[in-house]
């Protein structure tokens, strides 16, 4: 639990944020699947899941190449709503398999797909958050496994809490929110596992 002080500090920052900002960043700040309780942090206000206008993702064949940020966000909303259609599970399984097999070449694949490493990083962090949501929603440790591997990639996850979680440059903040979310949920998942409260 070496990160608990950092998490506590950042959590306090979020608690001071305007509710509109939390609402606007619902996918990253609106629902931590109870990890805040596991870490002993006071819960934030709850908001309804946002409406994602582009719902075409479920009509596509599950594949990394068919996925974009809006698609991932829609899948995350579906996971949160406990809307476990076979399609969502298939997407999650396919993406996890892809990430596992291509872990060492993901940076190149992202660069090829997006042309810029910054967009690629945002996309991959969204994907990591999707995997993390799947772990919490379905209590499936295989998804935590891939999240841990992704968070070991220095080009992808490098959050040290130095950037304050306050409104400002939008792009950078989105990445910070995602990284903070992953940090808190990873710590909580590992704590839960160590305490022996996960039964698959």
């Amino acid at each position: 639990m070496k990160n608990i002080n950092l998490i506590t500090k950042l959590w306090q920052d979020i608690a001071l944020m305007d509710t509109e900002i939390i609402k606007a960043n619902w996918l990253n700040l609106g629902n931590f699947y109870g990890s805040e309780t596991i870490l002993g942090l006071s819960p934030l206000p709850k908001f309804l899941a946002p409406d994602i206008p582009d719902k075409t993702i479920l009509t596509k064949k599950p594949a990394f190449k068919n996925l974009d940020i809006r698609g991932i966000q829609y899948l995350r909303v579906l996971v949160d709503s406990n809307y476990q259609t076979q399609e969502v599970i298939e997407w999650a399984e396919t993406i996890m398999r892809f990430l596992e097999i291509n872990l060492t070449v993901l940076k190149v694949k992202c660069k090829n797909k997006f042309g810029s490493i910054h967009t690629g990083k945002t996309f991959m962090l969204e994907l990591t958050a999707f995997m993390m949501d799947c772990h919490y929603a379905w209590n499936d440790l295989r998804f935590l496994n891939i999240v841990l591997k992704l968070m070991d990639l220095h080009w992808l996850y490098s959050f040290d809490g130095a950037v304050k979680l306050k409104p400002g440059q939008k792009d950078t903040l989105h990445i910070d929110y995602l990284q903070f979310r992953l940090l808190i949920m990873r710590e909580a998942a590992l704590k839960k596992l160590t305490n022996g409260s996960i039964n698959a």
Partner: protein
Amino acid sequence: MHKVIVFSPNRYSLYSTTVSAMLIRKGVSIQSIYVRNLINLKRFVGEYRRDGSRLIKKIWNKLILKEASNQNFDNIRIFRKENEIFITDLFEFNAKFGIPVIPCNDLNEPTVVDGLKNLHPDLVVFTGGGLIRQDVLDHSGHGVMNCHMGILPNYRGMDVVEWPILERHPEMIGITVHFMKKGVDTGDILNILNIPPMKDETIPALRNRIEPIMCQTIVDTCMDYLEGKVPKIPQKLSEGKQYFKMHTLLQENAKVILSRGSHAK
């Protein structure tokens, strides 16, 4: 006489040499042994993509240390001694029994497929060497038989000794003899053996205990199948999941769970 071909990941594999020797003792005619070359850049790159830095450790343990590694948990060496199996290099099968031992870079390459087409084996016994493609499967007689260190269909893939411990399903540790199919560990099942951990047993010790059981089980199942005593049972894939290499943090958790004896629900 039953005709079998053996696939091997490397010429010094204890598993391959043990299984081959046991098959010969059972009266099986080994038509040839295909063995992957040790020094092969494509293989190294492929395995590095899969295993990352763990590959270096694997190479060090398996090829450099050989006899020195795992001395405390040396069940397969004891098993070999008890069964008087002294061959340590697959090429000795050529010298002693005249069995062609054919090196290849990949078990899917055309020379292997051609060899299978010419020899028409009853089946192929797989003792490691990567994924097998459809054209190899298509020319392997009844199929390519593998012994998976995990219970199918529940635990497909990798580290499936650790995963049931982490998920608190120790009763789901064991081995499965099955025919290979295009998907990972998805082919018809022939034999399942549950091997739950013993009191105070560590994961490396458990894995070590399983190794000789795998040798014995794949040989026995192979003989039973060839004699028509074992049916093929199709897998219900929906009953299982595919697992991947376990992250070190989860491995540590699995170790702790096992040592605490809290792996049982």
